[in-house]
């Protein structure tokens, strides 16, 4: 079943054309890589899907429903989660609390219940903590659950924000350069983690500069260049596409 689809997305910033008619669709359980040189419009595209930007024209569909221009929190509630290139971890609180923050969409206590710390809040807190511990276990970070987040090395912080995004049980997870800024060993670990996520059947959109990582884990790859879609296909197809080769070796 088609889970997510974007149709003819165009985005202008003060006259600068960042995206020029991008379309693709995503099936459940699929892993789609988005690659392209810097400034190709990759992050802009997922910013539009997650509702941070409104597209100049074009539509976003989720489970067949038109969701163009929905605010980010609504998209998150419907099951579209993401991480950020500039990580956006909450440095002053613990690793566990960071991941628990991702449980927001699955809990519902309002401010009054929270002030009074009603039994319903306690129940949700326990469920959130249990979920967070599970995810940290998956990340291999269970032992550091009570560390303040700033004390973790960068590679581990990147895993924490992935765990945070997973805490809400999203239907689609969008990762913006999970291996960006990581050293070789950390990148390898990230690759293993992505393989594990693939094994769990999570639907993923993956923006990444590390081409070999993308080729390894993705079912299909979308190649952007100067805001245009220049290729969309399996890793093999994309690798042999003359336009892609040109963009990466020639003109870029």
């Amino acid at each position: 079943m088609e889970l997510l689809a974007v149709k003819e997305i165009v985005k202008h910033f003060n006259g600068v054309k960042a995206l020029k008619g991008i379309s693709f669709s995503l099936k459940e359980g699929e892993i789609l890589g988005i690659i392209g040189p810097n400034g190709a419009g990759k992050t802009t595209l997922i910013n539009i899907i997650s509702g941070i930007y409104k597209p100049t024209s074009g539509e976003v569909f989720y489970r067949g429903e038109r969701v163009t221009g929905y605010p980010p929190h609504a998209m998150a509630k419907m099951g579209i989660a993401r991480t950020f290139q500039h990580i956006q971890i909450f440095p002053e609180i613990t690793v566990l609390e960071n991941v628990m923050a991702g449980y927001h969409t699955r809990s519902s206590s309002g401010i009054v219940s929270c002030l009074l710390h009603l039994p319903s809040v306690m129940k949700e807190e326990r469920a959130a903590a249990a979920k967070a511990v599970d995810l940290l276990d998956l990340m291999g970070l269970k032992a550091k659950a009570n560390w303040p987040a700033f004390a973790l090395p960068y590679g581990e912080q990147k895993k924490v924000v992935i765990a945070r995004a997973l805490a809400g049980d999203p239907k689609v997870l969008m990762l913006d350069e999970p291996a960006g800024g990581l050293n070789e060993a950390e990148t390898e670990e990230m690759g293993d983690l992505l393989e594990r996520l693939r094994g769990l059947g999570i639907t993923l959109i993956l923006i990444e500069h590390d081409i070999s990582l993308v080729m390894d884990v993705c079912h299909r790859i979308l190649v952007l260049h100067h805001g245009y879609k220049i290729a969309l296909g399996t890793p093999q197809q994309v690798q042999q596409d003359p336009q892609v080769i040109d963009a990466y070796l020639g003109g870029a």
Partner: protein
Amino acid sequence: MNQNLAQFIFSGTTTGAIYALIALGFCIVENSMKIVNFAQGDFLTLGGMFMFSMLYALHLSILPAIVLSVLAVALIGAAMERFALRLAKSKETVVLVFITIGASIFIRGGIKLIWGKSPKSLPYFSGAHPIDLLGARILPQSLWVIGGTIAVFLALHHFFHHTKQGKAMKAVAYDPKAAALMGINVEAMMMLSLALAGGVGAVAGILIIPITTMTFDMGVMLGLKGFAAAVLGGYGDVMGAVIGGLLLGLLESLGAGLISSTYKDVIAFVVLLLVLFLRPRGILGKEEWERV
């Protein structure tokens, strides 16, 4: 034109010019440190008080008195950067802004100690004889104020848009680390901006002390009005400071004249809030994207 209306507009323009001048002081510090300097109003009081002492205690003639007063307040501004803001262990905006509030309390305490609580005044620069203009009577001193504001505005506009130093200062505000890598002396720039703000504040004080007698705590309300003007126009923009100042002055004067003098400040602040609700970054402000 209705004679009263003309009068309101002229007096509003004069008040507005004062607010604009104070707003320009706020603007300078924003363009180096990205903070609100709440001591700006007290720079104004200091300028007026120094002028008073230069003339009556040191018996200087008017021009050297002006120059020395401006230099003195500029020095105090520089000292505030060097001995307070620069020493701050935390560079969080809110901490730095509250240090300027502390400085403002400190300066006011100092003024009260040195010049006392009694109001100070000076004679008009060029006579008290009002001029008739379009049916309104205006004091020559008002023209001094308006002229002074225009001069400072033009100088600052030139400074920020056409000089290397001015552009370097803005670069410091935008990204101090990158500016330092480009070879800009960040700390010197910040000190310069506080000195400039002090100088501009002093000019404002010198121009208005003949109109409004000066008391030690005068800077509080005038500082707030200048801040409001800067926000109204679009914080940090020199043109915005002038537009915001004039608008606020006219609002007050027309509000007082046509609606109620008791509630002129309320009217001005309500309009300010309404403008902000419609344009969250002031009249000239542009919406910024949060980078993610």
